[in-house]
């Protein structure tokens, strides 16, 4: 996936004629086995910061798997978590170029083994009288929550480690995923337990 289209929207556009909820055919999670690192940036909360970061990735040919942006506890700063495809460019070069952006205040490069990662998923799964309870059970097993119930579908919310979301996607896929949206992973460094 290119930097120009980070995995922000997994759904088809809803505009135009046709069913409001079209069956979504998921792409196999091709990126799953690629090497990826999480780079978290603390950025100044100023207009255009996201454009500068995304533009840098596009311009330098660095690929993004996912991108999550939100304010931090300090209203002057936001945190951007980017999952970088380190096969597209040396991570060191990505970090050094990001460091040159004036609005980027801090960069933490997290190896997956050194990070506490989390991600949020919303998925609408097709169900019938037989499968409804199975799907609800699966959601409970993974710690998910049923947030909406319709006549032929349920919507589940699951917040967990990204790999658990991957697994959950796979187990509900046979029932029919109608819509799916993930936030992209966020991460903080693991705490030092030794001292």
């Amino acid at each position, binding site marked *: 996936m290119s930097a120009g289209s980070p995995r922000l929207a997994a759904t088809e556009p809803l505009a135009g004629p046709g069913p409001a909820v079209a069956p979504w055919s998921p792409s196999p999670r091709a990126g799953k086995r690629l090497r990826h690192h999480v780079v978290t940036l603390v*950025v*100044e909360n100023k*207009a*255009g910061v996201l*454009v*500068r970061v995304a*533009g*840098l990735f596009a*311009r330098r040919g660095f690929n993004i798997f996912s991108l999550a942006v939100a304010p931090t506890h300090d209203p002057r700063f936001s945190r951007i978590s980017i999952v970088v495809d380190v096969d597209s460019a*040396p991570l*060191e*070069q990505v970090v*050094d*170029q990001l*460091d*040159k*952006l*004036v*609005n*980027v*205040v*801090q960069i933490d490069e997290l190896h997956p083994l050194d990070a506490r990662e989390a991600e949020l998923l919303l998925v609408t799964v097709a169900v019938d009288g037989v499968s409804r309870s199975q799907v609800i059970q699966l959601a409970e097993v993974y710690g998910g929550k049923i947030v909406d119930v319709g006549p032929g579908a349920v919507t589940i919310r699951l917040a967990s480690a990204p790999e658990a979301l991957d697994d959950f996607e796979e187990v509900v896929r046979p029932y029919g995923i109608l819509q799916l949206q993930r936030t992209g992973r966020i991460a903080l460094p693991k705490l030092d337990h030794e001292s």
Partner: protein
Amino acid sequence: MELTGAQSLIKSLESQGVEVVFGLPGGAILPVYDPIIDSSIRHILVRHEQGAGHAAEGYAQVTGRPGVAMVTSGPGATNIVTPLANAFMDSTPLVVVTGQVATKSIGTDAFQEVDITGVTAGVTKHNWLVTDARDIPNVVAEAFHVATTGRPGPVLVDFPKDVANSVTTWEEPGPVDLPGYRPPAAADPAAIAAAAELVLAAERPVLYVGGGVLKADASAALARLVELTGIPVVTTLMARGAFPDGHRLCLGMPGMHGNYTAVTAMQRADLLVALGSRFDDRVTGKVSSFAPLAKVVHVDIDRAEIGKVRRPDVAVVADCRLAIEALLAALRERAAARPGALDPTRISPWIAMLDEWRERFPLAYDRTDAPEARGGPSPLKPQYVIEQLRAATPEDTVLVSGVGQHQMWAAQHWRFDQPRSWVNSGGLGTMGFAVPAAIGAKVGRPDRMVWAVDGDGCFQMTAQELVTASAERIPVKIAILNNAYLGMVRQWQHMFYEERYSEVYLSPDLPDYVLWAEAMGCVGLRVTSPEEVTPAIEKANEIDDRPVVIDFRTDSMEQVYPMVPSGLSNDEIVLHPSQQGLAR
């Protein structure tokens, strides 16, 4: 004290020490042009916004101070994108102020609205959209700080019309508060120590000097380093003049059109000390075979350059001058502890080999005094014109060039002996750079003679700025090497496209460059034979009240040699035909 946002902006520029602004007014920037009338700042009215940008670059390159340009919104702003990109590539400090539609109109596709901060995000170090007039003094201070510190570069301040018209107050800006901007300062002593050890151990070292040495004003320190170590120097296209060509250890320019000795010295070196150079593809040729035997010490103020192309053995992230001075101290310390460590004989076989190459493979071209050697329609050789120009002009002349064959001949055949005496477009390769950049250079250094060597193709892109030069009494001198072709493109078609010349012919006399020059208020001269060259230059040198343009009708067939064909190894350097049979 109450004042308008426009007045606050001009006052802020004044307080930054700005003496000259190159610009062209328009709707959105109108309010800012009113207080210029009362300002100490000299405004130079260009004829096209691209000219303002390149003039500001020329000014910055010769003075070391930031160049300032001011244009209106929309097309005014997009017209200056090329100079911003050029300055970004060549690390030239530039502050560009653009007008913008009123903040309430932003996003409505208003007349002459362009999202110029968005457009220029990739070609500026940083840019700002001012939304509150109270921010003006601080934003301007930040803009100059970012443009001039660390690795210098262009910045842009976008200035909406309602902000310019609003009433505000002006306060002395506080200390710059940019928590994410931390340019490196001194060099890491451990890295310097490691670099010193490599220098002492090397048998075939080369100092690979780039534009960063000029930006850091490190020429004097570099000269001391050469004096102490006896290591030979190559100066890249951006670094011509950083170390004098007249010095016995200066090997000249490396790269695609570098001379044999400079190119081959790097290929055979066992140590490259890269000082403010970035392993550009025009220097390295095919990267995998570039300097294959060399250990690399890479000194650069921009950490992102370290390892971008070539992984160094020692990385020094620092200002070049500070790094060189630290290296000097480290070497002196070691030389004191280990007598003979810097004995010149340690590298004398290497120097002898370089001297032999220089003797056998100098820059060569068919001399004009032997026209029968090549024949052709014109016996006037462009290299000869440059040699005569160098001989007939003062030592401290500033030479400016455009982009193409003439640029390479100028870089090869001019003798550069002083820093900041060479102004050209290196990284971006912007045709049309020379005329406006020469104007900016002359404004920055009115005490110096400023000559531009330009091509006929380049000249046609920005010649209108000679109207600016005439109107403002800026007596630049332009030598057009008129070969009637887009010569460098022609050369590639000659060498790589079986002489199928596609869309490169321009004609020697359409336009008539002499008449065109005269129409723009310049003196126009024409030279068609070798005997006329020096008299025409001497005549031009005497004219100091207006610009001069000389139309040198040069040999269309001339090629730039040597040449490393694109994508090939530097070992496959193609020499001048007269040298091609010689054993290397």
